[in-house]
């Protein structure tokens, strides 16, 4: 076993997603304890140029996994291409973004490598030299510290949990680059392509104030109250948690979170939102957060600037009349 840390880059249209830089910061912090080497894998049809830039910019050694089968994401090709190379390298950690695609292939990759698997990692600590990974359960109400038992561990790291390093003028040597061509086409999964998002509007992106509803509002008709609260502010918009969309109370274009929109308004008012990590990932950048929830243990209070433990149905009218 060696102590190498592998970071798997995620690209969209042959461009690195910002979360990749967060993964690099995470991997470097993880490496620091035992000065482990960090290496990156950049999969895609023609990632040579991206990989070259990354090697120059970060000083990390890069493996570009290239070839026509990697033109589009496909769980089977990603898995097969990576597992073969990783089985030989036997790295200590494999860091993957906790994105839709990362979550799609990471657990299977862990099984194929006989590795430990820890998902939605938000941080780590060290105890007696061993890293303990931190993740949340029960909608963020409880923090869980997990340690791997195997020599290799697959980690998915939550976007936004680790700050990317400031890009510094490069004082270090450029990293090396290795190109590996992947010939194997998938046998069981055929990629048919990306389908664009349906109606998009810019209300959420442009709003100074977002008033957001969670399942804690209790019933669809209570949305009217949330809407009236939003009406108090100029340049405001209505957002919601995933559950509110799943219940059909609001359309998915209002959804804020990991799989919905990422917003950073001046003021975010969370009404009846529990504060699951999936939601917080979409609104962490808000300048000021006000949370109203009748459950004093709701995770949303951990990130709120102003917390109010009250029933929304009685509290909002009081705010309107105050």
């Amino acid at each position: 076993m060696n102590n190498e840390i592998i970071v798997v880059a995620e690209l969209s249209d042959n461009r690195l997603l910002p979360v990749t830089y967060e993964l690099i910061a995470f991997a470097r912090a993880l490496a620091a304890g035992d000065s482990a080497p960090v290496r990156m894998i950049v999969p895609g049809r023609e990632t040579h140029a991206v990989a070259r830039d990354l090697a120059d910019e970060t000083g990390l050694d890069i493996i570009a996994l290239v070839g026509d089968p990697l033109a589009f994401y496909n769980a089977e090709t990603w898995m097969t291409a990576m597992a073969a190379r990783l089985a030989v390298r036997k790295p200590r950690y494999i860091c993957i973004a906790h994105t839709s695609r990362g979550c799609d292939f990471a657990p299977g990759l862990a099984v194929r490598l006989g590795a430990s698997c820890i998902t939605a990692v938000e941080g780590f600590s060290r105890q007696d030299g061993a890293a303990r990974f931190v993740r949340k359960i029960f909608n963020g109400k409880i923090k869980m510290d997990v340690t791997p038992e195997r020599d290799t561990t697959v980690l998915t790291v939550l976007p936004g949990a680790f700050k990317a390093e400031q890009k510094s003028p490069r004082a270090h040597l450029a990293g090396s680059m290795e190109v590996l061509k992947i010939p194997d086409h998938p046998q069981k999964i055929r990629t048919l392509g990306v389908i664009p998002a349906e109606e998009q509007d810019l209300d959420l992106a442009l709003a100074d104030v977002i008033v957001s509803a969670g399942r804690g509002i209790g019933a669809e008709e209570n949305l009217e109250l949330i809407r009236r609260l939003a009406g108090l502010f100029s340049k405001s918009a209505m957002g919601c948690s995933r559950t509110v969309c799943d219940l059909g109370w609001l359309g998915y274009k209002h959804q804020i979170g990991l799989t919905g929109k990422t917003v950073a308004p001046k003021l975010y008012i969370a009404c009846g939102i529990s504060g699951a990590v999936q939601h917080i990932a979409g609104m962490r950048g808000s300048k000021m957060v006000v949370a109203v929830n009748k459950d004093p243990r709701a995770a949303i209070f951990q990130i709120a600037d102003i917390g109010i433990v009250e029933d929304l149905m009685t509290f909002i009218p009081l705010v309107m009349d105050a």
Partner: protein
Amino acid sequence: MQNSLNMKILVCVKQVLDADGPVRIDASGKWIEEAPAARFRMSRFDEFALEEALRIREGFPGTRIDALSAGPARAAQTVRRALEMGADDGIHLFLDDERYRMPFEIASLIGAYASDRHYDLILAGVMAEDDMQGQVGPMVAEILEYPWATAVMSQKLHKTGDGPDASGTIYVERELEGGLREAFELTLPALLTIQSGINRPRYPALSHVLRARSQALITIPTSRPGETDPVSFPAPRERIQSLEEPAPMKTGVILSGSPSEKAEKLRQILQERAFL
């Protein structure tokens, strides 16, 4: 009848503690306390998976749906709930204690159970509501060497032939960030994890509730690593070191006072910051 094919679907359902009530850490510090008033129910994500299976059966009469849950004695209620919703058979992989199991342990049990049963399709929720790992589904697929897709928002099945000559594909759209989706065609047998919101899970019909009441569950014993039951555990690959309630807010304040005093304070703060 053109669609009458004998397909077999397995739906994996998990029993979770209803987190709307209090969630407290148990004496061991490694899992959640089962307070006497604790309510357990099917993970909502798995309700979407089961509903999707029921809809497939409506399109392909003759399909059989097995619902499976791995859990302690109380998990039988969740298997029964699946029968009430309309599953044909209920399977309980019986765990003889209430200890939390890691996803790979559960995936190995389910994989061992399903390995010689030739399911055409296996469905599960995108994650469980309690531990939120999202691992069991794709792990079961990899163990069985099935292709898979996670976070599925829409599916359409194409099946031809029957019995050993059966073949088929399933078209899926899986959810990406920012409202995008990506489409794939998977060769059957395959496994999908179903994203919430794909459908509206039904309430049990009275006829199914009555049938479920008298139907026996299939209970399969499971054993510890190294023992010889057909369905046995592997050694865990991760260990929970501790659970903790997150520290209270770092920078924020909780407003105090009567409801109207809090409302007044909030308005004041919003005015000071020029939001109002």
